[in-house]
């Protein structure tokens, strides 16, 4: 039996993750912004899986609501075994370059909201001396590219933040899992032309579940071959890199 908290539950990867975890005696607490979508997921799971689910509506831009979300989650779940953070957006890079407000807003969702949520969660995990915190970031955080460096820098900030958090929480027996997916075919990337490097959300969810079951506390690339791709991209000397249109 596992008690699982998912933030960003309506994201495509989170949905397939939830589907996999909605088995046996597991208890799920799902958090998302869109009320309709959240209740859609809840009804579907209730009919398919006959499992205990509670939902909470949260806009991650509303930092004041975090405590009430965590308190509700704790009172429903008791102990939190697994926390998955899956929310995020894919900002329009051009718009971010034109409008400061957009850049700040997008960075707020993709970096600050996660950092603040993690800081709050860390306290809970420290007290519990137990649990696993998994955060979906991106390979885009490994090196800044002109096509999406607002997104990339937010993900990169989270990656480094999680390194520190892992360092802090290891002595409490708490695992911190950084999940770096490559391209995933989801509503977030619906407007992008698809190529062979795109994976299905199911593949990513499967990889996350596997890493969680092994209680991994490290950075993982999903699918695994992205470690090689990003190694190559990171190895390109700046002189050459800057001439590329990546």
């Amino acid at each position, binding site marked *: 039996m596992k008690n699982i908290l998912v933030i960003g539950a309506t994201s495509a990867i989170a949905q397939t993750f939830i589907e996999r975890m909605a088995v046996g005696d597991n208890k799920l607490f799902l958090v998302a912004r869109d009320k309709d*979508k959240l209740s859609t997921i809840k009804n579907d799971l209730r009919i398919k899986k006959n499992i205990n689910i509670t939902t909470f509506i949260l806009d991650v831009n509303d930092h004041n609501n975090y405590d009430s979300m965590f308190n509700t989650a704790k009172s429903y779940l008791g102990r939190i075994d697994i926390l998955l953070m899956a929310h995020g957006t894919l900002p329009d890079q051009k718009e971010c370059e034109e409008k400061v407000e957009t850049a700040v807003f997008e960075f707020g969702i993709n970096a600050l909201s996660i950092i603040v949520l993690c800081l709050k969660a860390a306290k809970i995990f420290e007290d519990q001396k137990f649990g696993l915190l998994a955060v979906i970031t991106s390979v885009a955080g490994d090196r800044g590219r002109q096509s999406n460096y607002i997104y990339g820098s937010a993900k990169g900030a989270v990656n480094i933040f999680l390194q520190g958090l892992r360092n802090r929480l290891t002595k409490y027996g708490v695992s911190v899992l950084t999940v770096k997916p490559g391209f995933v075919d989801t509503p977030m990337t619906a407007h992008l032309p698809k190529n*062979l490097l795109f994976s299905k959300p199911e593949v990513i969810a499967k990889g996350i579940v596997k890493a969680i079951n092994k209680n991994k506390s490290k950075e993982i690339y999903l699918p695994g071959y992205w470690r090689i791709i990003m190694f190559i991209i990171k190895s390109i000397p700046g002189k050459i890199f800057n001439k590329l249109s990546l």
Partner: protein
Amino acid sequence: MKQHYKSWGLYPPAKHKNVIKLHWISDIPDLSRIETLVLPYGLGRSYGDNCLNNDNTLLDTSGISRFIEFDKKSGIIKCEAGVSFAKILKVIVPNGWFFPVTPGTKFVTVGGAIANDVHGKNHHTAGTFGKHIISFELLKSSGKKYICSATKNTELYKATIGGMGLTGLILWAQFKLKPINNAYIDAETIKFKNLDEFFELSEKSSKEYEYIVSWIDCTSRGKNFGRGLFFRGNHSSLDKSELPQPKPPKRLPFPFTAPAFLLNRFTLKIANAVIYRSQLKKHTKGIKHYDPFFYPLDSILNWNRMYGKRGFFQYQCVVPYTDGGTAIRQILECISKSGKGSFLAVLKTMGSVSSPGILSFPREGVTLALDFANHGEKTRKLFADLDEIVKSVGGALYPCKDACMSPEMFRFSYAEWKNFNKYIDPKFSSSLWRRVNKEKE
């Protein structure tokens, strides 16, 4: 991971300008802003071009696949249009419910089953799937949504059932299930030597057996002409304790696209003879899990690859049974003479239960469905001959199996086509629809 959107017969080829994956029924993109014409696409089990929209846009509905409500007491289920029958079975069978009507594959969506008003082995008692639809919600390209039922937006309800996805996008549907005791069927197989025996068996069985279908050897000639196997069954009434232990179904993928020469007159004759002789006794009885009984071909994934790269056609017609089956006899003779056909030929008598759908295919009579490897003009010539026979007795062809029929044949099959035109959403179209509405050049 580029996905190719094809039809089950792998013919005709189609290039789509765009495919839009739908994820939430509460968040469908504005259809009026799409530049091209659109068509909903579920799991692509239509054989010909009914699920294709060449040079235009497909709306992939496989992502809107969630359950909305399931009343385990009354057996009424409500789900999004992209849910597959396979997914529904997993939920309903353990709770003692089954589909009121199911086609021969479970890899179809609810939306597709409504759009093609599918039928099954119980057509003679239950009618079509559309007959059991309580209500559904239809989204028009104008952004307006209509809840349709037998009493609400009735005209749109009747046009959408069997409406080939042209009246708008079905968001969800609600339908009534039928109660069962367990997941098994009391199944019987009887060999018949000729069509007279087939008609006699159909007549005798139609009252006492809910499910009836026959396989027919379409290559046999002379004294073997019209031989086949007659399958009939009812839901088993045994208690759980008396049932065999369920075995997990085996799934074999058809591993490659077969070279077309493997299927010829000679191999077909052998394959058909083997199937006919696979049963030695005249009459066998047994208990069978619903999966192999209803969906025998689903255990071989992608069996459609067996006809080679050029793909294949399916020809399904229905003809009235008023003249002792003369028309069916003529059709089968025409096919066996041609030496074409395949080993997947299905014959069934259809009942008089009418469907609400104005463009629904099933009607009282006998239906024959069989596959033909694509041999280009030769195959089309054979179909033209078959069409003449179907026409001569006032029969019809089934659009979701079709890639060939002429505009004349379509209008002949569907007397209501003019009336149907009124309900088509101007933003919706399909390759089939443009084909059967082509004016003569």
